[in-house]
């Protein structure tokens, strides 16, 4: 094996529109992005999976609710169960919540407005695979755009997460 660039599968759903951004960003970070159509029952050999942003299945019913049953998502669920790294961005995060791979759910914004702006995040931990190139306390500027970005968990779940 001469190939050292990690392969990262980017799952594309009907209505995804940020898969090219995700692939570009992964390439810029030194990874090899591999686009995977949602109807694929198996993932290609991959070191990680990214679910990109967009409006999978038109955001019908609830955002991410229909995408979670795509054949590729069953493969992603198995991949995650085996300890694989999965990152969901934007609609990808909504899909992970609907699929139960992440806790909680995303509801329509309280303002009912589509939000598109930069937000500031502080890196609390740099010892995770997703933040290993960051430093603790570093401030990141992340652009967000969403109509359903209001993460919700009931009190029991929040208490469990904060514990």
């Amino acid at each position, binding site marked *: 094996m001469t190939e050292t660039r990690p392969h990262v599968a980017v799952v594309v759903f009907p209505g995804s529109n940020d898969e090219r951004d995700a692939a570009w960003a992964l390439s810029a970070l030194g990874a090899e992005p591999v686009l995977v159509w949602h109807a694929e029952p198996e993932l290609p050999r991959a070191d990680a999976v990214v679910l990109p942003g967009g409006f999978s299945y038109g955001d019908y019913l609830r955002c991410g609710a229909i995408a979670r049953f795509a054949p590729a998502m069953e493969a992603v669920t198995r991949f995650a169960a085996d300890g694989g790294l999965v990152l969901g961005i934007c609609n990808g995060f909504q899909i992970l919540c609907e699929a139960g791979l992440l806790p909680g759910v995303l509801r329509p914004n309280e*303002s009912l407005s589509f939000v598109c702006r930069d937000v500031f995040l502080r890196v609390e931990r740099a010892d995770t695979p997703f933040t290993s190139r960051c430093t603790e306390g570093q401030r990141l500027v992340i652009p967000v755009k969403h109509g359903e970005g209001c993460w*919700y968990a009931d009190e029991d779940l929040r208490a469990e997460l904060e514990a």
Partner: protein
Amino acid sequence: MLVRPKAGILDPQGQAVERSLRQLGFAVGEARIGRVIDVDVDAASAPEARAEVERMCERLLANPLIESYEIELESGVA
């Protein structure tokens, strides 16, 4: 099926409608917005149809974290 935000869950659409209704002079209390989903189900009996529709709600149509659902059956001959 009637799927709507659970009691206590913020419903911004309902709030916007509530404000509009009050502006129009209607003395309304809380307004909440849900959605109605009609499906035709081929089942041998009403309990069987209800059980099938319940499974639909649990798996896809409602997110139990934030939504509740009610089922109403109408029998018809296909």
